[in-house]
């Protein structure tokens, strides 16, 4: 195991690392140490920050959740809404342009899109800040209230949110669109028409709730992919979240921090999957009862 340590470390650091992680001990012992540390919440000290790892990732977690959750909810809702509209107008201009738009945006390379957005809207237009979650002056000043601080954070959040949103809404749109087209062929839609219901009611009240179910499933399936995107976005925008921390710690060989960040991300992914499953069960009565 000690052979796997990065050869770029200085001998002292390497020795420290080996000792801290018990890398010179037999494998099974190392595993026991690992488990003990893990369950006692002893994640060690960050090499780089010199602070307990738990503290650092505790700080970062809310920021990631804020950005990540908002982006997923926003792209899912807008994707569902636009996909619905695209299916109603199948074959017409609205549909072709929405579908094409979805296709193009969701194949864009995320970090590149992020850079382009920064270049155009932050650098050239100056509408948004280039990096970070909150301006230093605003953060430090004790006299500025929570409301202003919140607004400032939102101001910083626009571009990263836009990036994540643009990349993700396309696939939800496409799935909703084809799901609606399938749902509209179902027997209960014919019943609705026979009942004399107006088209709008049929589409919104009867078709859409059924058509949205596969989209929810798809959100769950693509969570791993979304987290990748989240980490990339945080890195480019220097948004102080766990994804960025992971990338940062890996490039600085900060093993304790890297390990903890990774673990936390894995937990976030698992929990999100759980949330999506629960949401699906709530939306589909066939599962609930």
């Amino acid at each position, binding site marked *: 195991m000690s052979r796997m340590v*990065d050869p770029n470390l200085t001998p002292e650091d390497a020795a420290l690392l080996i000792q801290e992680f018990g890398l010179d001990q037999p494998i099974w012992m190392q595993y026991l140490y690992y488990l003990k540390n893990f369950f006692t919440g002893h994640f060690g000290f960050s090499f780089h920050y010199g602070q307990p790892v738990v503290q650092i990732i505790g700080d970062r977690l809310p920021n990631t959740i804020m950005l990540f959750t908002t982006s997923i909810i926003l792209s899912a809702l807008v994707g569902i809404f636009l996909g619905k509209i695209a299916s109603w107008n199948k074959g017409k201009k609205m549909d072709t342009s929405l579908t094409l738009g979805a296709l193009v945006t969701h*194949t864009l390379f*995320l970090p590149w899109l992020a850079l382009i957005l920064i270049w155009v809207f932050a650098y050239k237009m100056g509408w948004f800040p280039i990096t970070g979650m909150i301006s230093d002056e605003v953060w430090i000043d004790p006299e500025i209230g929570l409301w202003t601080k919140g607004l400032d954070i939102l101001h910083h959040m626009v571009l990263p949110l836009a990036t994540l949103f643009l990349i993700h809404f396309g696939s939800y749109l496409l799935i909703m669109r084809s799901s609606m087209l399938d749902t509209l062929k179902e027997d209960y839609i014919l019943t609705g028409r026979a009942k004399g219901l107006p088209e709008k009611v049929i589409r919104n009240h009867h078709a859409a709730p059924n058509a949205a179910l596969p989209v929810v499933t798809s959100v769950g399936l693509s969570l791993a992919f979304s987290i990748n995107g989240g980490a990339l976005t945080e890195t*480019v925008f220097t948004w102080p979240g766990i994804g960025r921390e992971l990338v940062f710690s890996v490039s600085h*060989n900060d093993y304790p921090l890297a390990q903890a960040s990774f673990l936390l991300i894995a937990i976030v992914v698992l929990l999100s999957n759980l949330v999506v499953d629960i949401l699906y069960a709530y939306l589909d009565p066939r599962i609930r009862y």
Partner: protein
Amino acid sequence: MTTADTGIELSERLQWMNRLIEGWSIYKKNLLGKIGIILLVLFALMALCSFIPPLLDPMYQPMAGVDPEISTATGPSTRHWLGTDFMGRDILSQLLTGARIAFMVGVSAAFMSVFLGTAIGMIAGYVGKFMDTLLMRLADMIMVMPALLVLLMLAALFGQLSIWFIVFFIALFRWPGVSRVIRAQTLSLKHRPFIEAAKVAGASNLRIIFRHIMPNVLPLSFLYMTFQVTSAIIIEAALAFLGFGDPGTVSWGMMLQWVWKTGHMFRAPYWLLPPGICISLITLSFYMLGRAMDEVLDPRLRKEGETD
């Protein structure tokens, strides 16, 4: 070989050829598919041309070539059609090399993951029971993991990653998606008469899987290969962008990393734009290819009137 076996094989082969011909004629009608193929051919040409510039002049070497007269980022000129990067290296030759790397990474990783996924999917679907549950649980666990981040952790452990290591691990993460679909297909094929006939003729399980099920499942595998190529290219590009790619290869992601890390992203659009456009376009074209193939394979998707 029993007569039942040969008979089945012959009719299957004829079926296959028929379907190939029919498939092509449907594919041709699809606009997206045509655009996709055209773009891919362009990229393939780019990849092939990547060998040309260094032969013309050593200064066009993507990694090591340095223009004796230029040592900073400059805009497009007659000598350097896309300009130079911060070290004076030619951007166009980097772009062309990137195309080559993209194909290499994409196709290899896709091929490996589809190979694995198809084999595992067929076995799980056909054998069923314990093996099936075991394999699918494994697939589930792998599918939930964010590939990029795991690769990051591996980069932390091993230091620099070589390109083939990256390709191999991408394949390792992407096979579950393929295997699920192939398994479903296998399950539906399992009970068809021609399989029953083969069993009666005394064919062993392995033979049935590879001689009879596989040819019917391959078109689906090919379809998924196109999707796998795109995700492989993106993962490699993202990894390179973050600085964890193979330092010896010039991929588009690597190019973006250089623009970003050297702070040129606002000053050098000729450097920032091409690699990103290329990654996005190649992803788009493989996706279009996949969609068109999907229409060929799934008759329900074909845009033929509203006959019900």
